[in-house]
């Protein structure tokens, strides 16, 4: 019991929507024990950052609780310190002063403060930079300051919010390596680390345990217990122990296999993931035969944040590889992180251009035609496919029924607000506008925030 540092029980966090609260996190149970590194993995919108802030006591849970060493939090967690993605350094303070602020907040005397900070600065390899201001430092050095500032207060749990994602690849690799070395050497002043990341490889390299948070793939899925789950509400989707020896080797046989397995979970086809996708309208994808699959609805089918250019590019690459590629391989080859790649995969699947099978994605017949066609033809195919996507379809049919074929954007925003938070609504509208414009299904007038049907025959070129 005593080695349980952080415990979340039934943790739910919601934000206000039109019909009441929309959960961003729902029913999370998580324990962080002494001596382990836990990675929270998920794509944007999965609530992983929200979960980390709940653990830090920065955001109060809507339901459930977070406890530190058995004490339920009622404010900022006294046993954690955070490292921020954007470093969060105070630009008007020197490195030394930045590292000292946490100690100053605890009321430590100036002399002791200086000594403790110097020690942390040494530990993290910042000696020589004490009197520098953050803007004089490179990104890697800045994040070192972030680490030193968090470590100097000797928290039980170090919380890291995508600490390497604002750094270039080489710097990130270096810093990650040094951090792990410190951790293993036993000099590390904290007892556990919680790391939020959307970089799968980073998670496997660093963590003892990987917790995948359940942002749903762009495809529809009914929530547990028959209750349709609205929006993106995140739950724990899967948990993996990482049994690999440290220091870890990317070429070790277990490494790639684990990455592959996690990709399967994240694209919704994993051994322990949710059920298969419902049929995709007229063009059934290979390997898809779930009989009791739910219908596609506005609530259950959010548009993935993918640009038309991006998904066309992915289709093109797939076509060059005989129509199929492993997702892990793709990510590696294109140096894309989950947040960049998975929305594109989702989009292809949602449009019926691609089908996810196992750990790979394959182009469907429609996908091959779409990718191989010339601009106008591929636009027509895209329009056809996009019409079957709930939001785009709804907008188009509503406009066709409207008196002057024009509708205010607010109308659709209100529709979405029943299922999504305001931020998600804005994002969904943006994507729907982008897709609809490209498909030439409708035009959007930003000055008057109005949708207008492009022409009577969907997909035909219209003069806008």
């Amino acid at each position, binding site marked *: 019991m005593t080695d349980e540092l952080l415990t979340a029980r039934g943790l739910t966090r919601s934000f206000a929507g039109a019909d009441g609260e929309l959960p961003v996190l729902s029913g999370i149970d998580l324990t962080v024990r002494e001596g382990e590194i836990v990675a929270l993995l998920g794509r944007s919108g999965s609530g992983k950052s929200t979960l980390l802030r709940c653990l830090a006591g920065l955001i109060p849970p809507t339901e459930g609780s977070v406890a530190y060493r058995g004490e339920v939090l009622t404010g900022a967690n006294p046993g954690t310190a955070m490292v921020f993605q954007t470093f969060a350094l*105070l630009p008007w303070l020197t490195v030394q002063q930045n590292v000292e602020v946490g100690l100053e*907040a605890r009321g430590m005397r100036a002399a002791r403060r200086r000594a403790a900070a110097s020690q942390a600065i040494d530990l993290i390899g910042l000696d020589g930079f004490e009197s520098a201001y953050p*803007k004089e430092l490179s990104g890697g050095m800045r994040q070192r300051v972030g680490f030193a500032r968090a470590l100097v207060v000797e928290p039980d749990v170090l919380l890291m919010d995508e600490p390497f994602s604002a750094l270039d690849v080489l710097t990130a690799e270096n810093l990650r390596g040094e951090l792990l070395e410190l951790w293993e050497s036993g000099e590390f002043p904290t007892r556990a680390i919680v790391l939020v990341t959307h970089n799968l490889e980073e998670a496997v390299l660093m963590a003892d345990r990987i917790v995948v948070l359940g942002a749903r793939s762009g495809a529809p899925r009914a929530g547990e217990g028959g209750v349709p789950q609205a929006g993106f509400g995140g739950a724990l989707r899967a948990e993996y122990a990482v049994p690999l020896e440290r220091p870890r080797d990317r070429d070790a046989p277990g490494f790639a296999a684990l990455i592959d397995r996690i990709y399967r979970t994240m694209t919704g086809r994993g051994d322990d993931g949710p059920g298969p996708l419902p049929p995709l309208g007229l063009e059934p994808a290979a390997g898809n035969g779930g009989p009791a699959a739910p219908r596609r609805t506005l609530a259950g089918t959010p548009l993935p944040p993918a640009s038309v250019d991006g998904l066309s590019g992915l289709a093109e690459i797939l076509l060059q590889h005989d129509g199929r590629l492993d997702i892990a391989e793709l990510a590696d080859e294109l140096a894309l992180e989950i947040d960049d790649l998975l929305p594109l995969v989702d989009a292809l699947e949602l449009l019926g251009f691609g089908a996810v099978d196992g750990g790979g994605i394959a182009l469907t017949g429609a996908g091959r035609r779409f990718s191989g066609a010339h601009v106008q033809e591929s636009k027509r195919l895209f329009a056809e496919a996009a019409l079957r996507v709930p939001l785009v379809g709804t907008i188009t049919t509503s406009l066709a029924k409207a008196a002057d074929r024009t509708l205010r954007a607010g109308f659709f925003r209100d529709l979405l607000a029943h299922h999504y938070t305001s931020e998600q609504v804005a994002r969904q509208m943006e994507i729907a506008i982008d897709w609809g414009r490209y498909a030439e299904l409708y035009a959007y007038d930003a000055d008057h925030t109005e949708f207008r049907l492009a022409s009577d025959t969907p997909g035909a070129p219209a003069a806008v």
Partner: protein
Amino acid sequence: MAVLLFVVVRAGSGTAVSFVPSRGGPLGADPGHLPYYAVRSLLRMFAALALSLLFALVYAYAAAHSRRLERVLIPLLDVLQSVPVLAFLTVAVSGFAALLPGSTLGLECASVFAIFTSQAWNMAFAFHHSIIRTPRELDELSRDLGFTRWMRFWRIELPGGAIPLVWNAMMSFGGGWFFLVASEMVTVRNGGRALPGVGAYAGRAIAAGSLRDVGWAIATMAVMVVGVNFLFWRPLVAWAERFKVEQSEAPEVQRSLVLDLLRRARWPRMLARALAPVGEAAGRAGRVFGRDGRSFGASRRRRRAGDAAFATVVVVAVGWGAVDLVRYLDDRTGLGVFGEPLLLGLATLARVVVLIAVATLVWVPIGVRIGLSPRLTRVAQPAVQVLASFPANFLFPLATWFFVRTGLPLNLGGILLMALGAQWYILFNAIAGAMAVPTDLREAMDDLGLRGWRRWRRLIAPAVFPAYVTGAVTASGGAWNASIVSEIVAFGGTTLTATGLGAYVAHAAEAGDHPRLFAGVTVMALYVVGMNRLLWRRLYRLAERRYSL
């Protein structure tokens, strides 16, 4: 440094000496007294600045950290900002004089108060805005590491607001000269005791119709404005650069010769080292204000009940005040008192509109020309800054003399007087807007051969528009305020009067007719607010949506 200190002490003792009743009397016409008067005027300016800063920090902090107070304080600030302060000058002067009878200290307070009212609101707005815009990660950092509220203020909020505060203070200080001069002149007009100061000197010279002495006063004023700018504001602005949140080194930095000298000197560093323990002790004492961050405990129901109670108290207080006021007006003059100022307001409105239109046509092209040329900008921008802060009411006697000579009616000439102060905001912002036009866009226009009118329509006008709107709002507000001193002017024995709300208010203030004064000021505030709501705010939103670069 020691010399400066001595001068301050010397001039300050003047304030104290005049506690003795007989001393605040006649004002010398000798230009040799002007340096002394200048220091006295400067002391007033800086006292008001310190007061404004203190007010801004406290007020903005309270509004930013209390959800309930914010709902009252911010609209109140909006109202205060729209009230033409000049109208209350006479009232304030006699009020403070009555409060502290028998010395010039009352007048001194009135003058400082007048300057304060021209600076404080802006600064409070700027600081409030910057507190509520504190970057999310810094807010999280503060709560995560358990900063005390004291630390959060000194380490995050004040440094984060330093740049907007300094810039706003500099701009407001520029506007403050106008009020300094106006308030000192009022004491001259009141007869008897006058405040020793440059404005008062000019006031006496105007009453005596001495163009030569007015000239001396203008020259002194120019030296003061330029000197304060060079010795105080430039170094401060350059120093504030360190509070930029931007994480990379900016290529274009504000520089100041004086600051460079200070940086090279040893004593500032020694002073900092000596003061460090004081800061430590203050930080320790500041712990009594508690830690940053709310507890999760607060129940929603209790919060709602608190909100409701607070709202009730506010509504009752405001309602009671309004009823009382209406009763007072009804007793004294009847509510018809609002009719005349409403009508006269139209005349002043027409002047403001003409002023803005003409100033736009004249200054926007010139400003753009300057802004697009880095060489011209370097020369012209500081000059315009000084021109903008030069108190226009100083030039009024010259203009009046000119009107009397040429027979130009003040109904038209008033526009010119109002423009003397207001137009610079438009020019200044046009320059700033043009400077912000990205070079690649200009090159693209060159490349496409878009020139002349078309270039203006497609690139320049849209790009400059947001900055122009900011300038025009300030200019319009300034023009309304200036109408109070521009629609009645005197030089020597001649007094010219124009038809308008400004003249109405000035008359009422002079005559001590409080119901009329109140009605006039309320109507003017209504005009200002109405114009802001109906015109400027819309343009602002349009600028933000469509034309932000």
